[in-house]
Protein backbone atom coordinates (compact mmCIF):
# COMPACT_ATOMS: atom_id res chain seq x y z
CA UNK A 1 0.00 0.00 0.00
CA UNK A 2 2.82 2.38 0.92
CA UNK A 3 5.13 3.23 -1.95
CA UNK A 4 7.93 5.77 -2.06
CA UNK A 5 6.94 8.39 -4.63
CA UNK A 6 7.44 12.12 -4.80
CA UNK A 7 5.88 13.79 -1.76
CA UNK A 8 2.21 14.49 -1.97
CA UNK A 9 2.52 16.82 1.00
CA UNK A 10 5.76 18.62 1.87
CA UNK A 11 5.74 20.78 4.96
CA UNK A 12 8.78 22.72 6.13
CA UNK A 13 9.21 24.68 9.38
CA UNK A 14 5.46 25.17 9.54
CA UNK A 15 4.25 27.49 12.26
CA UNK A 16 0.83 28.71 13.26
CA UNK A 17 0.21 31.13 16.07
CA UNK A 18 -3.15 32.14 17.50
CA UNK A 19 -2.75 35.41 19.39
CA UNK A 20 0.98 34.76 19.98
CA UNK A 21 0.18 31.27 21.27
CA UNK A 22 1.74 28.55 19.10
CA UNK A 23 -0.70 26.00 17.73
CA UNK A 24 1.98 24.45 15.51
CA UNK A 25 5.69 24.99 15.87
CA UNK A 26 8.42 24.00 13.43
CA UNK A 27 6.66 21.11 11.73
CA UNK A 28 8.67 19.51 8.96
CA UNK A 29 7.15 16.51 7.30
CA UNK A 30 6.88 14.78 3.93
CA UNK A 31 3.99 12.52 3.12
CA UNK A 32 4.29 10.31 0.07
CA UNK A 33 1.63 9.72 -2.53
CA UNK A 34 -0.24 6.52 -1.78
CA UNK A 35 0.48 6.69 1.93
CA UNK A 36 -2.00 6.50 4.81
CA UNK A 37 -0.60 8.75 7.45
CA UNK A 38 -2.00 8.84 10.98
CA UNK A 39 -1.84 11.88 13.22
CA UNK A 40 -1.92 11.11 16.90
CA UNK A 41 -1.92 13.53 19.80
CA UNK A 42 -3.94 14.77 22.74
CA UNK A 43 -6.68 17.38 22.34
CA UNK A 44 -5.18 20.76 21.50
CA UNK A 45 -2.01 19.19 20.09
CA UNK A 46 -2.55 20.91 16.73
CA UNK A 47 -3.95 18.05 14.63
CA UNK A 48 -7.00 19.98 13.40
CA UNK A 49 -4.92 23.10 12.71
CA UNK A 50 -2.47 21.02 10.69
CA UNK A 51 -5.22 19.50 8.54
CA UNK A 52 -6.96 22.85 8.09
CA UNK A 53 -3.65 24.35 6.98
CA UNK A 54 -3.36 21.70 4.30
CA UNK A 55 -6.91 22.47 3.21
CA UNK A 56 -6.21 26.21 3.07
CA UNK A 57 -8.83 26.97 5.70
CA UNK A 58 -6.18 28.34 8.05
CA UNK A 59 -3.21 30.46 7.01
CA UNK A 60 0.30 29.62 8.24
CA UNK A 61 2.23 32.12 10.32
CA UNK A 62 5.54 30.79 9.02
CA UNK A 63 7.09 28.01 6.96
CA UNK A 64 6.00 26.46 3.70
CA UNK A 65 3.30 23.98 2.75
CA UNK A 66 3.40 22.23 -0.59
CA UNK A 67 0.64 19.95 -1.79
CA UNK A 68 1.21 18.12 -5.08
CA UNK A 69 4.46 20.06 -5.38
CA UNK A 70 2.68 23.42 -5.35
CA UNK A 71 2.73 26.13 -2.71
CA UNK A 72 -0.60 26.28 -0.95
CA UNK A 73 -0.86 29.99 -1.75
CA UNK A 74 -0.89 29.07 -5.46
CA UNK A 75 -3.83 26.75 -4.95
CA UNK A 76 -6.86 27.70 -6.99
CA UNK A 77 -10.40 26.55 -6.44
CA UNK A 78 -9.99 24.14 -9.35
CA UNK A 79 -6.93 22.52 -7.77
CA UNK A 80 -8.86 21.98 -4.58
CA UNK A 81 -10.82 19.32 -6.47
CA UNK A 82 -7.83 17.08 -5.79
CA UNK A 83 -8.17 17.45 -2.02
CA UNK A 84 -11.02 16.04 0.05
CA UNK A 85 -11.68 17.07 3.62
CA UNK A 86 -13.90 15.67 6.34
CA UNK A 87 -14.00 18.08 9.27
CA UNK A 88 -13.97 17.14 12.93
CA UNK A 89 -17.58 18.29 13.19
CA UNK A 90 -19.03 17.65 9.75
CA UNK A 91 -21.44 20.56 9.73
CA UNK A 92 -23.39 20.29 6.55
CA UNK A 93 -26.19 22.50 5.28
CA UNK A 94 -29.07 21.45 7.48
CA UNK A 95 -31.74 22.97 5.26
CA UNK A 96 -30.83 20.52 2.49
CA UNK A 97 -31.85 16.90 2.16
CA UNK A 98 -29.09 14.37 1.59
CA UNK A 99 -30.07 14.17 -2.08
CA UNK A 100 -29.90 17.95 -2.44
CA UNK A 101 -26.57 18.14 -0.64
CA UNK A 102 -25.12 15.47 -2.94
CA UNK A 103 -26.43 17.35 -5.99
CA UNK A 104 -25.02 20.63 -4.65
CA UNK A 105 -21.61 19.03 -4.09
CA UNK A 106 -21.70 17.36 -7.51
CA UNK A 107 -22.09 20.71 -9.25
CA UNK A 108 -18.50 21.61 -8.32
CA UNK A 109 -17.00 18.43 -9.77
CA UNK A 110 -17.20 17.95 -13.56
CA UNK A 111 -16.48 14.23 -13.25
CA UNK A 112 -19.24 13.62 -10.70
CA UNK A 113 -20.78 10.22 -11.33
CA UNK A 114 -24.46 10.21 -10.38
CA UNK A 115 -24.72 6.42 -10.62
CA UNK A 116 -21.80 5.91 -8.28
CA UNK A 117 -23.26 8.53 -5.96
CA UNK A 118 -26.53 6.57 -5.82
CA UNK A 119 -24.59 3.35 -5.18
CA UNK A 120 -22.57 4.88 -2.34
CA UNK A 121 -25.64 6.39 -0.72
CA UNK A 122 -27.38 3.03 -0.86
CA UNK A 123 -24.31 1.41 0.64
CA UNK A 124 -24.25 3.66 3.71
CA UNK A 125 -28.00 3.22 4.15
CA UNK A 126 -28.86 6.84 4.79
CA UNK A 127 -32.28 8.33 4.00
CA UNK A 128 -31.70 10.49 0.92
CA UNK A 129 -34.94 12.42 1.26
CA UNK A 130 -34.34 13.32 4.90
CA UNK A 131 -33.18 16.81 5.84
CA UNK A 132 -29.61 16.88 7.20
CA UNK A 133 -30.87 18.61 10.36
CA UNK A 134 -32.50 15.31 11.37
CA UNK A 135 -29.24 13.37 11.05
CA UNK A 136 -27.22 12.17 14.04
CA UNK A 137 -23.53 13.03 14.26
CA UNK A 138 -22.58 9.57 13.00
CA UNK A 139 -24.90 9.93 10.01
CA UNK A 140 -23.40 13.34 9.22
CA UNK A 141 -19.88 11.91 9.43
CA UNK A 142 -20.77 9.08 7.05
CA UNK A 143 -22.40 11.59 4.70
CA UNK A 144 -19.32 13.80 4.76
CA UNK A 145 -17.05 10.84 4.05
CA UNK A 146 -19.17 9.58 1.18
CA UNK A 147 -19.29 13.05 -0.36
CA UNK A 148 -15.52 13.31 -0.01
CA UNK A 149 -14.97 9.84 -1.53
CA UNK A 150 -17.30 10.59 -4.42
CA UNK A 151 -15.11 13.49 -5.47
CA UNK A 152 -12.22 11.01 -5.84
CA UNK A 153 -9.53 13.35 -4.50
CA UNK A 154 -5.85 12.44 -4.66
CA UNK A 155 -5.43 13.59 -1.08
CA UNK A 156 -8.04 12.95 1.59
CA UNK A 157 -7.83 14.71 4.94
CA UNK A 158 -9.86 13.15 7.73
CA UNK A 159 -10.10 15.00 11.02
CA UNK A 160 -11.32 12.75 13.84
CA UNK A 161 -13.73 10.98 11.48
CA UNK A 162 -14.35 8.11 13.86
CA UNK A 163 -15.55 10.33 16.69
CA UNK A 164 -19.20 9.76 17.53
CA UNK A 165 -19.40 6.48 15.58
CA UNK A 166 -20.32 3.20 17.23
CA UNK A 167 -17.90 0.26 16.71
CA UNK A 168 -19.92 -1.16 13.81
CA UNK A 169 -20.10 2.21 12.06
CA UNK A 170 -16.38 2.69 12.65
CA UNK A 171 -15.67 -0.60 10.95
CA UNK A 172 -18.01 0.24 8.05
CA UNK A 173 -16.37 3.65 7.73
CA UNK A 174 -12.89 2.20 7.52
CA UNK A 175 -13.96 -0.56 5.18
CA UNK A 176 -15.51 2.00 2.86
CA UNK A 177 -12.32 4.03 3.01
CA UNK A 178 -10.10 1.04 2.29
CA UNK A 179 -12.29 -0.54 -0.37
CA UNK A 180 -13.37 2.52 -2.29
CA UNK A 181 -10.49 4.91 -1.90
CA UNK A 182 -7.13 3.54 -0.95
CA UNK A 183 -7.52 0.71 -3.43
CA UNK A 184 -7.18 3.35 -6.17
CA UNK A 185 -3.68 4.25 -7.34
CA UNK A 186 -1.66 6.87 -5.47
CA UNK A 187 -4.43 8.01 -3.16
CA UNK A 188 -3.11 9.59 0.00
CA UNK A 189 -4.94 9.80 3.31
CA UNK A 190 -4.02 11.84 6.35
CA UNK A 191 -6.20 10.86 9.27
CA UNK A 192 -6.25 12.12 12.84
CA UNK A 193 -8.02 10.09 15.46
CA UNK A 194 -8.14 9.13 19.11
CA UNK A 195 -9.20 5.63 18.05
CA UNK A 196 -5.69 4.29 17.97
CA UNK A 197 -6.65 0.67 17.41
CA UNK A 198 -8.29 1.65 14.12
CA UNK A 199 -5.35 3.83 13.13
CA UNK A 200 -3.03 0.95 13.81
CA UNK A 201 -5.09 -1.15 11.44
CA UNK A 202 -4.93 1.17 8.46
CA UNK A 203 -1.90 3.48 8.73
CA UNK A 204 1.44 3.12 6.99
CA UNK A 205 3.07 5.78 9.13
CA UNK A 206 2.16 7.66 12.26
CA UNK A 207 3.17 11.09 13.52
CA UNK A 208 2.92 12.00 17.19
CA UNK A 209 1.95 15.62 17.88
CA UNK A 210 2.13 17.26 21.27
CA UNK A 211 1.76 20.97 22.03
CA UNK A 212 2.10 21.81 18.36
CA UNK A 213 5.32 19.86 17.90
CA UNK A 214 5.77 16.73 15.83
CA UNK A 215 8.04 14.78 18.10
CA UNK A 216 8.04 11.38 16.41
CA UNK A 217 7.23 10.10 12.94
CA UNK A 218 7.71 6.44 12.21
CA UNK A 219 6.37 3.68 9.97
CA UNK A 220 3.75 1.62 11.73
CA UNK A 221 5.70 -1.60 11.25
CA UNK A 222 8.80 -0.08 12.81
CA UNK A 223 6.84 1.22 15.75
CA UNK A 224 5.36 -2.16 16.36
CA UNK A 225 8.71 -3.85 15.88
CA UNK A 226 10.76 -1.61 18.09
CA UNK A 227 8.73 -2.28 21.19
CA UNK A 228 7.37 -5.61 22.30
CA UNK A 229 6.00 -7.06 25.48
CA UNK A 230 6.66 -10.59 26.83
CA UNK A 231 4.16 -12.03 29.28
CA UNK A 232 5.55 -15.05 31.09
CA UNK A 233 4.43 -17.16 34.03
CA UNK A 234 7.43 -19.05 35.43
CA UNK A 235 7.26 -22.41 37.20
CA UNK A 236 9.58 -21.19 39.93
CA UNK A 237 11.29 -17.95 40.99
CA UNK A 238 13.33 -16.83 37.93
CA UNK A 239 16.97 -15.79 38.31
CA UNK A 240 17.27 -12.08 39.14
CA UNK A 241 19.85 -11.63 36.38
CA UNK A 242 17.11 -12.33 33.80
CA UNK A 243 15.43 -9.01 34.56
CA UNK A 244 18.69 -7.14 34.18
CA UNK A 245 19.42 -8.23 30.65
CA UNK A 246 20.16 -5.28 28.36
CA UNK A 247 17.09 -4.19 26.33
CA UNK A 248 14.52 -4.71 29.08
CA UNK A 249 12.91 -1.37 29.71
CA UNK A 250 10.36 -2.26 32.37
CA UNK A 251 9.36 -5.26 34.48
CA UNK A 252 5.86 -5.49 35.91
CA UNK A 253 4.99 -8.32 38.30
CA UNK A 254 1.42 -9.42 37.59
CA UNK A 255 1.30 -12.32 40.09
CA UNK A 256 3.75 -14.25 42.24
CA UNK A 257 5.42 -15.87 39.24
CA UNK A 258 3.79 -13.84 36.42
CA UNK A 259 5.77 -11.03 34.80
CA UNK A 260 5.29 -8.54 32.00
CA UNK A 261 8.56 -7.49 30.38
CA UNK A 262 8.67 -4.38 28.18
CA UNK A 263 11.43 -5.00 25.66
CA UNK A 264 12.93 -2.23 23.56
CA UNK A 265 16.01 -3.93 22.20
CA UNK A 266 17.92 -7.22 22.23
CA UNK A 267 14.64 -9.09 21.84
CA UNK A 268 15.97 -12.46 20.71
CA UNK A 269 18.39 -12.86 23.64
CA UNK A 270 15.72 -11.91 26.17
CA UNK A 271 13.21 -14.23 24.53
CA UNK A 272 15.73 -17.04 24.56
CA UNK A 273 16.56 -16.47 28.24
CA UNK A 274 12.90 -16.51 29.22
CA UNK A 275 12.09 -19.60 27.21
CA UNK A 276 15.00 -21.50 28.81
CA UNK A 277 13.72 -20.70 32.28
CA UNK A 278 11.00 -23.24 33.18
CA UNK A 279 7.64 -21.62 32.60
CA UNK A 280 3.96 -22.43 32.29
CA UNK A 281 2.98 -19.78 29.73
CA UNK A 282 4.90 -17.37 27.54
CA UNK A 283 3.35 -14.87 25.11
CA UNK A 284 4.81 -12.11 22.97
CA UNK A 285 2.80 -8.95 22.19
CA UNK A 286 3.52 -6.07 19.92
CA UNK A 287 2.75 -3.00 21.97
CA UNK A 288 -0.11 -1.18 20.43
CA UNK A 289 -0.25 2.39 19.30
CA UNK A 290 -2.11 3.47 22.39
CA UNK A 291 0.64 2.24 24.68
CA UNK A 292 3.24 3.88 22.48
CA UNK A 293 1.28 7.10 22.43
CA UNK A 294 1.04 7.14 26.21
CA UNK A 295 4.73 6.61 26.45
CA UNK A 296 5.70 9.25 23.88
CA UNK A 297 3.15 11.77 25.09
CA UNK A 298 4.31 11.28 28.64
CA UNK A 299 1.15 9.82 30.13
CA UNK A 300 -2.54 10.45 29.50
CA UNK A 301 -5.01 8.16 27.87
CA UNK A 302 -4.83 9.58 24.42
CA UNK A 303 -7.66 11.96 25.00
CA UNK A 304 -5.55 14.51 26.61
CA UNK A 305 -6.64 13.47 30.07
Amino acid at each position, binding site marked *: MFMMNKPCVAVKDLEKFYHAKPALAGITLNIQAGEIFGLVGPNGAGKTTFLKLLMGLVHPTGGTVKVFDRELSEFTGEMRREVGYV*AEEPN*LYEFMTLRELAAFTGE*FYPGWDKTRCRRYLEKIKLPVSEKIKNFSRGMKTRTALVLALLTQPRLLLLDEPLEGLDPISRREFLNLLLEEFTSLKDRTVIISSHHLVELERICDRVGFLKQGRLFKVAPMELLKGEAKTIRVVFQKEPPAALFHLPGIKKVQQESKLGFLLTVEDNFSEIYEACSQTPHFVMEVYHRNLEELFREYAGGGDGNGR
Partner: protein
Amino acid sequence: MAVKELVRKEFRHLRWIIITGVLVNCTTALLIVGAYYFLKKFVGQIPAETLLMLQEIDIIHSVLSIFSDYSHYIWSQWNAKNLFQVAALLVIIIAATQYAGEAGKKTMTFLLSRPVNRRQVLTAKCLAVFLALLLFFTTGTVVLLISSRLFGYRLLNSMIVTAGFLTLLWVYVYYLVGSIVSLFFSEPLPAGVAIGLTGLLLSVPGLFGGLRPYSIFYQMKATGYFLFAESPFGSIIAALVLTGILYFAALRVFQTRDY
Protein backbone atom coordinates in the same frame (compact mmCIF):
# COMPACT_ATOMS: atom_id res chain seq x y z
CA MET B 1 -20.85 27.79 -12.89
CA ALA B 2 -19.61 27.74 -9.30
CA VAL B 3 -20.90 31.26 -8.63
CA LYS B 4 -24.31 30.37 -10.10
CA GLU B 5 -24.58 27.32 -7.82
CA LEU B 6 -23.45 29.36 -4.85
CA VAL B 7 -26.01 32.09 -5.56
CA ARG B 8 -28.70 29.43 -5.73
CA LYS B 9 -27.51 28.02 -2.41
CA GLU B 10 -27.60 31.49 -0.84
CA PHE B 11 -31.19 31.93 -1.98
CA ARG B 12 -32.16 28.60 -0.46
CA HIS B 13 -30.30 29.42 2.73
CA LEU B 14 -31.87 32.85 3.11
CA ARG B 15 -35.26 32.07 1.59
CA TRP B 16 -37.34 32.56 4.74
CA ILE B 17 -35.63 35.83 5.58
CA ILE B 18 -36.18 37.07 2.02
CA ILE B 19 -39.79 35.87 1.86
CA THR B 20 -40.57 37.48 5.24
CA GLY B 21 -38.89 40.73 4.16
CA VAL B 22 -40.80 40.83 0.86
CA LEU B 23 -44.13 40.12 2.56
CA VAL B 24 -43.53 42.76 5.25
CA ASN B 25 -42.51 45.27 2.59
CA CYS B 26 -45.52 44.62 0.34
CA THR B 27 -47.89 44.76 3.31
CA THR B 28 -46.31 48.03 4.41
CA ALA B 29 -46.73 49.48 0.92
CA LEU B 30 -50.40 48.50 0.92
CA LEU B 31 -50.96 49.88 4.43
CA ILE B 32 -49.34 53.21 3.57
CA VAL B 33 -51.71 53.71 0.63
CA GLY B 34 -54.69 52.45 2.65
CA ALA B 35 -53.80 54.69 5.58
CA TYR B 36 -53.79 57.72 3.26
CA TYR B 37 -57.23 56.81 1.98
CA PHE B 38 -58.75 56.39 5.46
CA LEU B 39 -56.97 59.36 7.06
CA LYS B 40 -57.95 61.67 4.18
CA LYS B 41 -61.54 60.46 4.53
CA PHE B 42 -61.34 61.08 8.29
CA VAL B 43 -59.88 64.59 7.80
CA GLY B 44 -62.59 65.30 5.22
CA GLN B 45 -65.25 64.67 7.88
CA ILE B 46 -63.82 67.34 10.20
CA PRO B 47 -65.85 70.59 9.91
CA ALA B 48 -63.99 73.36 8.04
CA GLU B 49 -63.92 75.77 11.00
CA THR B 50 -62.53 73.08 13.33
CA LEU B 51 -59.91 72.26 10.73
CA LEU B 52 -58.85 75.90 10.53
CA MET B 53 -58.56 76.02 14.30
CA LEU B 54 -56.52 72.80 14.40
CA GLN B 55 -54.14 74.05 11.73
CA GLU B 56 -53.00 76.76 14.07
CA ILE B 57 -51.30 74.05 16.12
CA ASP B 58 -47.88 73.49 14.50
CA ILE B 59 -47.68 69.72 14.69
CA ILE B 60 -51.20 69.21 13.40
CA HIS B 61 -50.53 71.70 10.61
CA SER B 62 -47.52 69.73 9.43
CA VAL B 63 -49.42 66.42 9.64
CA LEU B 64 -52.31 67.83 7.65
CA SER B 65 -50.00 69.41 5.06
CA ILE B 66 -48.72 65.94 4.17
CA PHE B 67 -52.21 65.09 2.91
CA SER B 68 -52.12 67.91 0.42
CA ASP B 69 -49.43 66.18 -1.70
CA TYR B 70 -49.82 62.44 -2.23
CA SER B 71 -46.33 61.89 -3.68
CA HIS B 72 -44.78 63.72 -0.78
CA TYR B 73 -46.84 61.63 1.63
CA ILE B 74 -45.70 58.43 -0.05
CA TRP B 75 -42.03 59.47 0.03
CA SER B 76 -42.23 60.50 3.70
CA GLN B 77 -43.88 57.24 4.73
CA TRP B 78 -42.20 54.89 2.25
CA ASN B 79 -38.62 55.95 1.43
CA ALA B 80 -38.03 58.13 4.46
CA LYS B 81 -39.50 55.75 7.01
CA ASN B 82 -40.56 52.17 6.36
CA LEU B 83 -38.63 51.08 3.28
CA PHE B 84 -35.12 51.85 4.49
CA GLN B 85 -35.84 50.71 8.04
CA VAL B 86 -37.20 47.32 6.99
CA ALA B 87 -34.40 46.97 4.41
CA ALA B 88 -31.69 47.93 6.92
CA LEU B 89 -33.06 45.40 9.39
CA LEU B 90 -33.14 42.80 6.62
CA VAL B 91 -29.50 43.34 5.64
CA ILE B 92 -28.39 43.22 9.29
CA ILE B 93 -29.97 39.76 9.61
CA ILE B 94 -28.64 38.61 6.23
CA ALA B 95 -25.05 39.82 6.72
CA ALA B 96 -24.92 38.32 10.23
CA THR B 97 -26.29 34.99 8.91
CA GLN B 98 -24.08 34.83 5.82
CA TYR B 99 -20.68 35.22 7.46
CA ALA B 100 -20.79 34.98 11.26
CA GLY B 101 -23.65 32.46 11.02
CA GLU B 102 -21.81 30.21 8.59
CA ALA B 103 -18.63 30.50 10.66
CA GLY B 104 -20.49 29.64 13.88
CA LYS B 105 -22.28 26.65 12.37
CA LYS B 106 -19.02 25.68 10.66
CA THR B 107 -20.78 25.29 7.32
CA MET B 108 -18.23 27.78 6.00
CA THR B 109 -15.60 25.06 6.52
CA PHE B 110 -17.70 22.70 4.40
CA LEU B 111 -18.21 25.36 1.74
CA LEU B 112 -14.56 26.38 1.56
CA SER B 113 -13.43 22.78 1.22
CA ARG B 114 -15.31 22.61 -2.09
CA PRO B 115 -13.29 23.54 -5.19
CA VAL B 116 -14.21 27.22 -5.01
CA ASN B 117 -12.07 30.16 -4.08
CA ARG B 118 -13.04 32.76 -1.54
CA ARG B 119 -13.59 35.42 -4.17
CA GLN B 120 -16.27 33.24 -5.77
CA VAL B 121 -17.94 32.62 -2.41
CA LEU B 122 -17.99 36.33 -1.52
CA THR B 123 -19.13 37.35 -5.00
CA ALA B 124 -21.97 34.83 -4.87
CA LYS B 125 -23.08 36.03 -1.46
CA CYS B 126 -23.00 39.69 -2.55
CA LEU B 127 -24.77 38.93 -5.82
CA ALA B 128 -27.48 36.91 -4.06
CA VAL B 129 -28.15 39.75 -1.65
CA PHE B 130 -28.27 42.32 -4.45
CA LEU B 131 -30.82 40.19 -6.28
CA ALA B 132 -32.80 39.65 -3.06
CA LEU B 133 -32.85 43.41 -2.41
CA LEU B 134 -33.87 44.06 -5.99
CA LEU B 135 -36.77 41.64 -5.52
CA PHE B 136 -37.61 43.30 -2.20
CA PHE B 137 -37.68 46.80 -3.70
CA THR B 138 -39.36 45.84 -6.94
CA THR B 139 -42.24 43.97 -5.32
CA GLY B 140 -42.79 46.73 -2.75
CA THR B 141 -42.70 49.46 -5.39
CA VAL B 142 -45.03 47.55 -7.71
CA VAL B 143 -47.55 47.07 -4.86
CA LEU B 144 -47.24 50.75 -4.03
CA LEU B 145 -47.81 51.91 -7.61
CA ILE B 146 -50.69 49.50 -8.32
CA SER B 147 -52.49 50.21 -5.06
CA SER B 148 -52.10 53.96 -5.58
CA ARG B 149 -53.69 53.62 -8.99
CA LEU B 150 -56.47 51.41 -7.61
CA PHE B 151 -57.26 54.02 -4.97
CA GLY B 152 -57.21 56.66 -7.71
CA TYR B 153 -54.23 58.68 -6.49
CA ARG B 154 -51.75 60.36 -8.78
CA LEU B 155 -48.21 59.48 -7.83
CA LEU B 156 -44.99 60.87 -9.29
CA ASN B 157 -43.98 57.39 -10.35
CA SER B 158 -40.55 58.22 -11.76
CA MET B 159 -39.54 60.13 -8.63
CA ILE B 160 -40.68 57.37 -6.30
CA VAL B 161 -38.91 54.73 -8.40
CA THR B 162 -35.70 56.81 -8.54
CA ALA B 163 -35.86 57.45 -4.79
CA GLY B 164 -36.40 53.71 -4.29
CA PHE B 165 -33.38 52.97 -6.45
CA LEU B 166 -31.24 55.30 -4.31
CA THR B 167 -32.54 53.57 -1.20
CA LEU B 168 -31.62 50.21 -2.74
CA LEU B 169 -28.06 51.33 -3.54
CA TRP B 170 -27.40 52.78 -0.09
CA VAL B 171 -28.95 49.83 1.71
CA TYR B 172 -26.54 47.70 -0.32
CA VAL B 173 -23.64 49.89 0.82
CA TYR B 174 -24.80 49.25 4.39
CA TYR B 175 -24.98 45.51 3.65
CA LEU B 176 -21.33 45.54 2.53
CA VAL B 177 -20.31 47.41 5.68
CA GLY B 178 -22.27 44.80 7.64
CA SER B 179 -20.53 41.98 5.77
CA ILE B 180 -17.11 43.28 6.78
CA VAL B 181 -18.24 43.56 10.41
CA SER B 182 -19.80 40.10 10.29
CA LEU B 183 -16.55 38.58 8.98
CA PHE B 184 -14.91 39.36 12.32
CA PHE B 185 -17.49 37.34 14.26
CA SER B 186 -18.28 33.69 14.70
CA GLU B 187 -21.80 34.04 16.07
CA PRO B 188 -24.69 35.74 14.28
CA LEU B 189 -26.21 37.51 17.31
CA PRO B 190 -23.16 39.55 18.38
CA ALA B 191 -22.45 40.17 14.70
CA GLY B 192 -25.98 41.52 14.21
CA VAL B 193 -25.61 43.81 17.23
CA ALA B 194 -22.24 45.05 15.96
CA ILE B 195 -23.68 45.72 12.48
CA GLY B 196 -26.56 47.66 14.07
CA LEU B 197 -24.14 49.71 16.16
CA THR B 198 -22.02 50.39 13.08
CA GLY B 199 -25.18 51.65 11.36
CA LEU B 200 -25.80 54.02 14.26
CA LEU B 201 -22.23 55.26 13.95
CA LEU B 202 -22.73 55.88 10.23
CA SER B 203 -25.84 57.91 11.01
CA VAL B 204 -24.00 60.29 13.39
CA PRO B 205 -23.32 62.96 10.69
CA GLY B 206 -27.11 63.19 10.36
CA LEU B 207 -27.22 64.87 13.77
CA PHE B 208 -25.31 67.89 12.47
CA GLY B 209 -26.96 70.20 9.94
CA GLY B 210 -24.06 70.72 7.54
CA LEU B 211 -22.91 67.11 7.69
CA ARG B 212 -26.35 65.60 7.12
CA PRO B 213 -25.64 64.42 3.52
CA TYR B 214 -22.77 62.29 4.91
CA SER B 215 -25.18 60.21 6.97
CA ILE B 216 -25.86 56.87 5.31
CA PHE B 217 -29.52 57.07 6.33
CA TYR B 218 -29.92 60.52 4.76
CA GLN B 219 -28.79 58.95 1.50
CA MET B 220 -30.99 55.89 2.01
CA LYS B 221 -34.02 58.16 2.36
CA ALA B 222 -33.06 59.98 -0.87
CA THR B 223 -33.82 63.23 1.00
CA GLY B 224 -31.61 65.44 -1.17
CA TYR B 225 -33.18 64.14 -4.35
CA PHE B 226 -36.81 64.19 -3.27
CA LEU B 227 -36.97 67.19 -0.97
CA PHE B 228 -34.27 69.49 -2.31
CA ALA B 229 -34.44 68.52 -6.00
CA GLU B 230 -30.76 67.55 -6.10
CA SER B 231 -29.52 65.45 -8.99
CA PRO B 232 -29.53 61.75 -8.04
CA PHE B 233 -26.31 61.06 -9.96
CA GLY B 234 -23.95 62.33 -7.27
CA SER B 235 -25.55 59.97 -4.77
CA ILE B 236 -25.55 57.09 -7.27
CA ILE B 237 -21.87 57.55 -8.13
CA ALA B 238 -20.90 57.82 -4.46
CA ALA B 239 -22.83 54.60 -3.70
CA LEU B 240 -21.21 52.76 -6.60
CA VAL B 241 -17.69 53.87 -5.65
CA LEU B 242 -18.29 52.86 -2.03
CA THR B 243 -19.71 49.53 -3.20
CA GLY B 244 -16.48 48.81 -5.09
CA ILE B 245 -14.24 49.83 -2.21
CA LEU B 246 -16.24 47.90 0.37
CA TYR B 247 -16.39 44.79 -1.82
CA PHE B 248 -12.59 44.68 -2.07
CA ALA B 249 -12.21 45.44 1.63
CA ALA B 250 -14.58 42.56 2.45
CA LEU B 251 -12.64 40.29 0.08
CA ARG B 252 -9.38 41.20 1.78
CA VAL B 253 -10.80 40.38 5.22
CA PHE B 254 -12.41 37.17 3.96
CA GLN B 255 -9.23 35.95 2.28
CA THR B 256 -7.11 36.38 5.38
CA ARG B 257 -9.60 34.93 7.85
CA ASP B 258 -9.04 31.48 9.34
CA TYR B 259 -11.91 28.98 9.47
